[in-house]
């Protein structure tokens, strides 16, 4: 009786390494897993397997299984039958880095657990965005050299953005599992009826997911300083441009630190729901710029220096614009 109780305490509440990559848990780090303690400022430290995690009250304890994990990505929304079969691992820590990228991912994007399906969606979104923007290229009738370039770019992107290493990546035909014709038929049900021309355009509202503001600001708060640090490490000849960029990213971090609360127009003065949606939308725009910055850092070594700086200036401009709009309250309907 006593032993079974004891064993139950010892056993991890969720099995890591299968459908769950990482979960918050206290106590002893399970076998083959790695423990990470994350404090409120995003600083992390690791525990080896079998070690009892002793954490402060302000820290969250995580455990993750390094894998390997098999997942299938769909690089293009318009081609759901063409997939990429990936095998990814969280590799042994980089001794030169003061914080492992996967630990930062846990700190800034982990909620209670990181599930494989949710992780796959995040990877999918990152790869799809990069293909749309032209940072990666996977064109029709891909040639061998183009595939190798894509593989190199994919490895760098996923390591820089998520801290995972791609072991294996092969193109797969999902025709047996995904039926594009059936997917299209499902759209028919949701399709809107034919439109009729009216005198004035209907006011359109671009929907935003509710509750997306706080995670977005959290990501900006935790990830802008590491992005700036990596930008500082870039080997660039144009000193003045580089310094100006670093200052702009530092100011963006400061703007995130002093960002007003979502629901308040002024202390004690609530803000309307429409304005809250507007603020959320701009916070998401700022996060999109942050994602572009990670992707650009990943490919910075393969692109001409002038282009890298130009892209960083564009990203900095988008970031400043989105953060200023997140803060502002338009006069007409404040």
């Amino acid at each position, binding site marked *: 009786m006593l032993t079974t109780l004891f064993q139950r305490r010892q056993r991890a509440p969720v099995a890591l390494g299968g459908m769950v990559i990482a979960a918050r848990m206290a106590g002893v780090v399970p076998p083959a897993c790695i423990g990470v303690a994350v404090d409120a400022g995003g600083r992390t430290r690791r525990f080896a397997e079998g070690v009892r995690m002793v954490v402060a009250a302000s820290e969250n304890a995580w455990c993750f299984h390094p894998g390997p994990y098999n997942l299938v990505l769909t690089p293009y929304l318009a081609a759901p039958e*063409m997939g990429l079969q990936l095998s990814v691992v969280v590799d042994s820590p980089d001794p030169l880095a003061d914080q492992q990228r996967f630990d930062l991912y846990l700190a800034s994007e982990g909620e209670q657990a990181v599930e494989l399906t949710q992780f796959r969606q995040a990877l999918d979104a990152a790869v799809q965005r990069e293909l*749309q923007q032209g940072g990666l290229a996977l064109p029709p009738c891909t040639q061998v050299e183009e595939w190798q370039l894509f593989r190199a770019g994919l490895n760098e992107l996923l390591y820089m953005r998520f801290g995972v290493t791609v072991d294996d990546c092969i193109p797969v035909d999902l025709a047996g599992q995904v039926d594009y014709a059936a997917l299209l038929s499902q759209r028919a049900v949701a399709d809107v009826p034919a439109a009729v021309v009216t005198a004035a355009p209907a006011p359109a509202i671009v929907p935003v997911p509710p509750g997306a503001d706080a995670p977005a600001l959290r990501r900006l708060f935790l990830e802008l300083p590491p992005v700036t640090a990596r930008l500082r490490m870039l080997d660039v000849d144009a000193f003045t441009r580089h310094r100006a960029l670093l200052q702009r990213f530092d100011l963006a971090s400061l703007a995130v630190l002093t960002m007003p609360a979502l629901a308040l127009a002024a202390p004690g003065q609530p803000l309307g729901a429409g304005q809250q949606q507007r603020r959320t939308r701009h916070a998401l725009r700022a996060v999109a710029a942050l994602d572009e910055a990670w992707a650009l850092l990943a490919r910075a070594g393969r692109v001409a220096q002038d282009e890298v700086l130009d892209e960083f200036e564009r990203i900095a401009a988008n970031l400043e614009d989105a953060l200023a709009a997140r803060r502002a309250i338009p006069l007409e309907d404040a």
Partner: protein
Amino acid sequence: MTPLPDSASCRCLLADGSFATVTATRRPRAGRADVKCSGVPGLAGAMQQVVRLARHTEAHADSRDQVVLGIDIDPGTRDWEFAAVLADRMVRGLYRAIEPACANGWSDHWQLGRIDGHTIGASAATMLGGPDGIAHLGALTGQPDVASVVSSARAWFPLHSGGINDSLGWVEVSVFPLSAVDAGDDAIAVPGLDVTRQLAVRQALLGSRDFDRCAPGRWRTTVRFAQPRFQGNSYELALVMADRLARGREYVVRGRMIATGTSSAWHAGQVETVEGMAPKCALIAREATSGDRILLPQAWQGLLPAGFLDQVRASGATVACVGQVGMF
């Protein structure tokens, strides 16, 4: 990379035969609004809203520039909207018009990139928005709409007519899923073409679907050509690629798909050579823009004109000489 223009204009053909011109100019942002519209207050507000909504469909945001838009007359209708969106894209280098652009279209769903309709009849030089013309902003570069029940993709092919009249023609393949109830033979409609050419189109499509083991009776297909009168069969590779893109069997192109090639064995996926390499390459090198994908027959591999590859790559397009459709 070609430098961005400082200003661009797009005309709109109105129902009474007159033109309204939307002019867009670009200047440094300097802390101002991203889009500014001048002119009649009500019209300017609507134009700003339309352009801002249409920008939601773009992948590449750049807030360093301000675009100032103006329209010379007040059309009184809403069919200038498509022209305003095009002018906004042209001035930022996101869309390159071949001739002086002329468009007519309106929409209540610009944030989805969908164009709902147009208010004038058919006109050769005017791009018409709506289901019978350009139904989706992605169709400007041939991509299918990821929210529509009909998946349609375009591919371009060089039309060689001896010198200055050379141009790129397009072929559009639209596929609609057939339900299990009305499944029968593959229905392939090719309106506007003569009977022999209809048969050739049908055989090429059936052959290439055989190649990727597409089950019969799955799609109802419509094939449209930019202009139905042309000679030769070098359009076949473009047709097959458009069909594969529409059926989601091929990776999507960022820009346009430009292809030339034919085959006597589409069921094996083979691509064979066509005539007129020099003028076609010259045309493609002139027309290629950033993100375009150019597919040429394998036999042209070592024979391409000097400087062609450099010129095309400098414009941001990619080239592949293929002996077979599909990867590698």
